[in-house]
């Protein structure tokens, strides 16, 4: 016994022109397509930031394995200098590997423990105020598509912390023997990561990385709070204009589900395509 009457009208999803006879107050189909485009744009651009930055931070987070670092220190001080600082109590040495590890840990801790929406507001409302006046002016006046780029930036940095945790877990799941073997054949620390650890680690973490990408794809809907008219925002707008919210929500739901299904299927193919023989044994310590 629904007291609220609701007249289903799936036709509104096909509205392309304003026409009061059919209840089309706007080109709803165009809105949905356009919103979908923004959703994909925000998610992809944010993912580029998240993946590259997350990989770097994730690698830095694995530098808490002293064995890999101490030996190259002694051999090639060009890569990683140990700084000695004289204090009243004697000489204090700062290990750059540990220092970078510390910074990356702080990054992950901060970005994982503040809600994404709050981070988005900080970047959008607070960041231009606290940077130098010149920068603030540039962000507010000259930055093209400020809402879009702020969303991309905020979501990229937020997701990077998540990607970093996956990369770290992937690298750490590789047996120590691989580190030793790579070092024994004379690879530099950078080469150890580039040719031995990362190629294996990325393969191991394909499934969690996929879900992180889907996470940023879904989280892109938060961009509506600062005025990006992405898919969810468009459905809300259709609801406000036509009172046919359920149809619009259904359309968005279907689009989200379809993209999720496609991405998951594609990544399963990628995973199989790049699988290495005997890889399962690598995960076991």
């Amino acid at each position, binding site marked *: *016994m*629904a*007291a*609220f009457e*609701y007249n289903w009208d799936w036709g509104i999803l096909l509205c392309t022109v304003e026409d009061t006879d059919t209840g089309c107050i706007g080109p709803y189909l165009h809105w949905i397509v356009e919103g979908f485009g923004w959703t994909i744009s925000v998610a992809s651009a944010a993912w580029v930031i998240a993946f590259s930055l997350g990989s770097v931070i994730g690698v830095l987070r694995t530098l808490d394995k002293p064995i890999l670092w101490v030996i190259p220190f002694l051999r090639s001080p060009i890569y990683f200098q140990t700084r000695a600082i004289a204090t009243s109590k004697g000489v204090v040495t700062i290990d750059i590997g540990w220092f970078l590890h510390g910074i990356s840990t702080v990054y992950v*801790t*901060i970005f*994982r*423990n*503040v*809600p*994404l*929406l*709050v*981070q988005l*507001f*900080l970047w959008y*409302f*607070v960041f231009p*105020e*606290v940077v130098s006046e010149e920068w603030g002016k540039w962000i507010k006046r000259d930055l093209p598509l400020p809402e879009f780029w702020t969303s991309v930036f905020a979501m990229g940095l937020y997701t990077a912390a998540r990607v970093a945790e996956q990369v770290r877990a992937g690298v750490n799941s590789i047996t120590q023997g691989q580190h030793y073997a790579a070092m024994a054949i004379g690879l530099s620390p950078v080469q150890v990561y580039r040719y031995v650890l990362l190629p294996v680690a990325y393969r191991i973490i394909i499934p969690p990385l996929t879900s992180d990408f*889907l996470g940023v794809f*879904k*989280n*892109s*809907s*938060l961009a*509506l*709070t600062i005025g990006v008219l992405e898919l*969810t925002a468009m*459905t*809300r707008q259709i*609801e406000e204009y036509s009172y046919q*919210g*359920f149809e619009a*929500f259904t359309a*968005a*739901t279907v689009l*989200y*589900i379809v993209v*999720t*299904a496609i991405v998951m299927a594609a990544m399963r193919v990628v995973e199989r395509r790049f699988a290495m023989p005997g890889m399962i044994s690598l995960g076991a310590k």
Partner: protein
Amino acid sequence: MADTGFDYHIVFHSIPFLAKGMGLTLVLTVAAISGGLLLGTLLALARLAPIRWLAFTAGTYVNFFRSMPLILVIFWFYFLVPFILGFPVGDFYSVLVAFIMFEAAYYCEIMRAGIQSIKVGQVHAGEALGLTYRQNMRFVVLPQAFRNMIPILLSQAIVLFQDTALVYVVGLRDFLYSAEIIANRENRLMEMFITVAVVYFAMCLWGTLQVRKLEKKFAHE
């Protein structure tokens, strides 16, 4: 008063209002965790049940909700709950239903992993004692599964606590929205949003540290 600089007074004066918002955030979090955990456990049992259509339905439910952004789910239920019930129930309950339905999908996956982590010998031992399927689940499998999953369940609780900030989109006066009201009224966006971020950070960090402590404790046992 000058426009630049961090105005501590406005933060100090808005504490009672913000506390009220935090109250709503916490009530919503606790209610959503309880409901989500209950529904999620039932879903996990359904997914692992030997009855095929039941497992399929539960699986579809989980995949459906895991493919959707939380904001869209909130919008759905914001309009759907009063429509189905036939009378308005207030924003809070609509949002609560949305959170429970959404989070149950995630709790289901955690509980499923927890149940599957129980050695099959335990189930067999229970059967050998003459326990029924239901008794076996109730007294042997689920207590152990819950125990094993406590750290992950708590991590998910922290995620949920952060997610509640999204009630902003329907204008429910939680912690973030309360701060935003003051921020806009007093034109003090910087102070209020930084305060919000610091408070969320402190609470979540505390939670994360508790989870890590539990994990270590469990690893030792």
